[in-house]
């Protein structure tokens, strides 16, 4: 590839660049997992399936995920939603979605006023670097959303 930097006729140069790009594309293909991945659009649809067309607001959810996950087979995830958790004002459910896993759904956690805190933690699988989305539905029908990116070193969904 160092030849590209030496002065040559433009046609040959573009041919070399073309070949280089083609080579990269082939390498890229082999890295793509066999399973068809979810994408942000699928996550949007999955969210709509859960909450309908309710408008989502930012805030109130703090998502705790590592910035870099070495092992995508088991990534710790925790969240807490700011709420008084009383009979009249509590968090009903929190849904977690993954934008680049084979399936967008991760889990749904159902709270009650007797939960005391809208906090939960578990461990999840991540196929690759991606955004994790949390959607919280409150008892008054309002919906909050938060998103955070996790870089994954070794993916963990099997294959």
């Amino acid at each position, binding site marked *: 590839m160092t030849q590209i930097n030496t002065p040559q006729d433009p046609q040959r140069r573009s041919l070399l660049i073309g070949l280089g790009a083609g080579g990269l594309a082939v390498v890229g293909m082999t890295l793509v997992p066999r*399973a068809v991945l979810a994408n942000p659009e699928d996550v949007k649809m999955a969210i709509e399936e859960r909450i309908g067309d309710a408008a989502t607001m930012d805030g109130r959810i703090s998502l705790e995920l590592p910035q870099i996950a070495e092992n995508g*087979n088991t990534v710790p995830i925790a969240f807490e939603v700011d709420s008084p958790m009383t009979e009249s004002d509590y968090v009903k459910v929190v849904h977690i979605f993954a934008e680049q896993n*084979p399936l967008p759904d991760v889990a749904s956690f159902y709270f009650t006023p007797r939960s005391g805190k809208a906090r939960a933690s578990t461990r999840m699988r991540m196929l690759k670097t991606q955004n994790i989305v949390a959607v919280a539905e409150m008892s008054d029908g309002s919906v909050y959303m938060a998103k955070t990116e996790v870089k994954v070193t070794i993916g963990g969904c099997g294959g």
Partner: protein
Amino acid sequence: MAKNVKPRVKVPKTAAKGEIIEIKTLISHKMESGQRKDNKTGEKIPRMIINKFTCTYNGVEVFSADWHPAISTNPYMAFNTVATESGTLEFTWVDDEGSTYTKSAKITVQ
């Protein structure tokens, strides 16, 4: 019934009335995602996960969760509840085959 499924829970033995306590649970389960292929045959290994977790406190549901294949092997679940009265917390896990695993823990509320 899947083999070697062992549920474990960690609940404080005592708590003050109204205190928010943390509960930690762990169950040994392969959580087969349905995405993996058998290396020899190349065929997909069928999905077999725990898809539902529930916690009741003296018979009243206080927390539950739906799990999808993105939940890791040997699923861990931690959450909170208010210590309202002395009694029993019951934990239930249900998998794709309909097998149910349960564990209970006693708590004394002063």
